[in-house]
């Protein structure tokens, strides 16, 4: 067993995961804090005004990372749902259940900041732009996952049912995005080409730093929440008594 797969094998067993994830979580939280602060400083202070939108474009530094995270977290959810269904790993279900609320939060942020960005640019808070509309539908998918996951008194059935929904949802997201895009071009000509096409390097690096910061922030929170979820799912096992008893 090579060192690498030994690590994963031990990580996959809930008690080891519970202990191993704590130091990693703490590390992620500090890295996330530093990256986000640097990104904010770069984005809000250093980056030059956009000749078209003035300072309004700075909303991008919170909108784009959260929009990207809302998609990334759904893919993590779908992947762990698949692992859970195929290899029957409780830890995988715990990761999916832990990620769902975080993904929903990122989607909410993306929606609100998107409409706040829309006001100065298009004059209205909500415009049926293809990306925002897909984000809205993604938000409903997250709510569907959370609702289904928690509507069974046996958690295992809830996990598996929600996992199937997550997999079907993951297949559906690109289709939804394409159909909304098709619908958008049908009515309003080509959808708004955002700023990202010709973005100056001094504007770009803070965006990448912010996105990485968000990833670590998600990493920290998902490890933390997964610990609680795995505790709930393993409450019949002995090791949870030691953890909870203290």
């Amino acid at each position, binding site marked *: 067993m090579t060192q690498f797969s030994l690590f994963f094998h031990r990580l996959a067993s809930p008690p080891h995961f519970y202990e191993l994830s704590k130091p990693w979580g703490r590390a992620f939280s500090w890295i996330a804090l530093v990256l986000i602060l640097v990104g904010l400083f770069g984005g809000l202070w*250093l980056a030059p005004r956009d000749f078209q*939108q003035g300072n*309004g474009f*700075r909303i991008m530094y919170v909108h784009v990372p*959260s929009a990207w995270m809302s998609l990334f977290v759904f893919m993590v959810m779908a992947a762990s749902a698949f692992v859970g269904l195929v290899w029957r790993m409780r830890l995988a279900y715990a990761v999916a259940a832990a990620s769902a609320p975080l993904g929903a939060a990122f989607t909410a942020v993306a929606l609100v900041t998107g409409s706040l960005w829309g006001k100065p640019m298009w004059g209205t808070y909500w415009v049926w732009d293809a990306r925002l509309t897909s984000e809205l539908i993604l938000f409903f998918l997250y709510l569907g996952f959370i609702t289904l996951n928690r509507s069974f008194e046996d958690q295992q059935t809830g996990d598996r049912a929600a996992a199937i929904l997550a997999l079907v949802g993951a297949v559906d997201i690109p289709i939804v995005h394409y159909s909304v895009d098709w619908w958008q071009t049908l009515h309003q000509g080509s959808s708004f080409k955002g700023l990202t096409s010709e973005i100056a390097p001094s504007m770009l690096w803070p965006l990448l730093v912010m996105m990485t910061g968000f990833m670590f922030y998600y990493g920290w929170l998902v490890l933390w*929440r997964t610990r609680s979820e795995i505790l709930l799912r393993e*409450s019949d096992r002995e090791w949870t008594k030691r953890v*909870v008893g203290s």
Partner: protein
Amino acid sequence: MTSLHEFLTMGRFGVFVWPAFGFGLLVMLFNIYLAHWREKSAFREVREVHRTSEENRS
């Protein structure tokens, strides 16, 4: 950014930029609180399960 004034007002966009970052910060902090609350309720429930299974066995 030329001056602190421009930073604060964001050149007439402040009314959109700051609420956007404010909401983002609010949600990220709320996430942390939720995670903390979830851990507390998980601990409470697992203690409950262990207590009842103790009673069943005795």
